[in-house]
């Protein structure tokens, strides 16, 4: 059956399974992705079905994982690499930034690096340090990478398919606190472009832009605002590099107000770029400055404080109110 209701994690699992099945060059690699199926079970059962040669438990060394994935890609493979948690991508940062991102250009286009780096990211799961961060801006700033994040099961399935098919390296941020959220996945649908934003709710008074875990929050905000008679449009950005500015611009030309929401710190977060660019593109349309809601400029706090730190319904509503008050 083509349409299934799946949790987001399972949708990625199915997507990986599909890719492993259809393209013998696809590999899955990372720490604990084999028998354990990953700490979030995203790769559950894959090693059993495709063998240790395709689904590879690696040594505990992220630079080594990405570095060898680059080598495998040079040999013609399409590795899908798992970084166990957001906070553990940094040992691999050098390989990602200086090698993975730049090698295609260095070779004047003669080699391609179709590597997908999967990173479960974001907070809200009550975890210990380094398990709740949102470092996407640190990748989006780097030319040569593409950076995406699905917010629901269907996108998770399809964006993973597209990421694996991409001849560019893709940093694939998975909203870990949505792993268990179910959604319909039509494995025979024709997906939209990987880097296009999607309007997930139409509205006329203000545009909310979010991605990954915050889309759900923004939809709740829009519903709450509706009750107060405010019509909010919600855009799921889906891609942080490139960003679909045309879609945001179009929406803002209609609503004339924009609030950007992400878990990552506001300071130099992706919202900064959106605010800067939309302020330029929509200079004569904006009735209020672009407002941003996100993390503070502090290390991610311990679990018992994360609800204060993370943008939630109230904080986004507060920003909406402030915007509408202009």
């Amino acid at each position, binding site marked *: 059956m083509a349409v299934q209701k799946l949790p987001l994690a399972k949708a990625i699992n199915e997507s990986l399974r599909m890719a492993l099945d259809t393209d013998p060059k696809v590999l899955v690699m990372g720490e*604990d992705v*084999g028998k354990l*199926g990953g700490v979030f079970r995203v790769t559950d059962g894959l090693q059993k079905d495709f063998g240790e040669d395709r689904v590879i438990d690696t040594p*505990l060394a992220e630079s080594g994982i990405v570095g060898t994935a680059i080598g495998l890609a040079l040999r013609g493979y399409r590795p899908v690499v798992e970084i166990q948690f957001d906070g553990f991508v940094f*040992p691999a940062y050098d390989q990602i930034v200086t090698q993975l991102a730049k090698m295609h250009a260095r070779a004047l286009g003669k080699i391609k690096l179709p590597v997908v780096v999967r990173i479960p990211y974001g907070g809200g799961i009550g975890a210990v340090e380094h398990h709740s961060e949102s470092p996407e801006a640190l990748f989006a700033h780097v030319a040569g990478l593409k950076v995406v994040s699905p917010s629901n099961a269907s996108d998770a399935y399809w964006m993973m398919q597209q990421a694996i098919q991409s001849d560019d390296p893709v940093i694939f941020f998975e909203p870990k606190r949505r792993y268990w959220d179910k959604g319909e996945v039509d494995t025979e649908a024709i997906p939209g472009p990987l880097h296009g934003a999607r309007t997930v709710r139409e509205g006329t008074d203000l545009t909310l832009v979010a991605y990954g875990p915050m889309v759900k929050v923004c939809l709740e905000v829009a519903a709450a605002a509706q009750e107060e008679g405010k019509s909010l449009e919600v855009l799921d950005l889906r891609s942080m590099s490139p960003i679909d500015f045309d879609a945001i611009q179009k929406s803002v030309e209609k609503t004339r107000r924009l609030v950007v929401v992400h878990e990552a710190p506001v300071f130099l977060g992706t919202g900064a770029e959106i605010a800067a660019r939309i302020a330029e593109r929509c200079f004569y349309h904006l009735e209020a400055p672009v407002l941003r809601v996100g993390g*503070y400029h502090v290390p991610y706090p311990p679990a018992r404080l994360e609800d204060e730190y993370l943008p939630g319904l109230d904080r986004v509503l507060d920003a909406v109110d402030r915007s509408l008050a202009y």
Partner: protein
Amino acid sequence: MTVDSTAAARTPRKRTAAKKSAKKSPGAGTPDLVQLLSPEGERVENAAHAEYAAFVEDITAEELRGLYRDMVLTRRFDAEATSLQRQGELGLWASLLGQEAAQIGSGRATRDDDYVFPTYREHGVAWCRGVDPTNLLGMFRGVNNGGWDPNSNNFHLYTIVIGSQTLHATGYAMGVAKDGADSAVIAYFGDGASSQGDVAESFTFSAVYNAPVVFFCQNNQWAISEPTEKQTRVPLYQRAQGYGFPGVRVDGNDVLACLAVTKWALERARRGEGPTLVEAFTYRMGAHTTSDDPTKYRADEEREAWEAKDPILRLRTYLESQTDTDEGFFAELETESEALGLRVREAVRAMPDPDRMAIFENAYADGHSLVDEERAQFAAYQASFTDAEGGN
């Protein structure tokens, strides 16, 4: 979770099972393994290891009981933490079950003026350093990311990013040498961590600067779901040689051997002979953490075989058969154990959630204008609710 670590965690009674599976003893077969107490609780005499044994030659029954007590209380504390996690009082717990000898032996080998860099599982070492065990629970409860002052007990914060603390330890040891102090530094890490580039770099730096640091690798044979073969194809202690310093493999379930070898290595460091790698060959008897389900990836029999080599059991057999330790000691310890459990339980439950404004504290030592601005905005935002509630 199928592994019942609380059950296994009780102070072990004398068990005849001990001898049964002593033949299955991976690692113990290696001639290089330093062992002073056999799994059967007998003193091992091995001329090749006399240099290490010398460090525990004069150990008294009293001191041995002290090590036993440390191990039992550590295990009790650990079991309490595991059950507190099940009760929802902690978000996570990383149990040291099975690694008590490695931790107590090495921890008791340190001097007050030595400095310790742990991973996230060194509850037994923390115990030896005098860190109040309830302090260890803050980060697992989610009220902080490391709740003690490292300098109070020369015991650094737990470090979660695998391997990174080995470089901090090396740098600290370089500083010790610069200061002309005769203390030493010990860095803990796991078999999985041995693959991280940082650990290799710490070997290089410590060798080049001849830093007084002991690298103490608890090879508990698992890095979450991955067996040691996914990290190396030769025993880990051999890694050191290629960097120009000695590596020793010690029976990590033998508290006496761990004590002796670590003392030996720390003494080398103090004497200015530079770094040493100690590989304590042990076994993670529980799950990786309370979030983990080891039935997914390893056979029960393996754990069962290692239960026969239980570090606490082994010392108990020795105490009972070779020393004047009477039942009273064990009974008293049982009582002390229960009291510790109770104290920890109560302390955790009493742990207050941090004030929400704490988010903005300690990001910087000298302040940061953006943090100040955000703090003020946050306070105003919070106040708007209070105002609203107050009918303002």
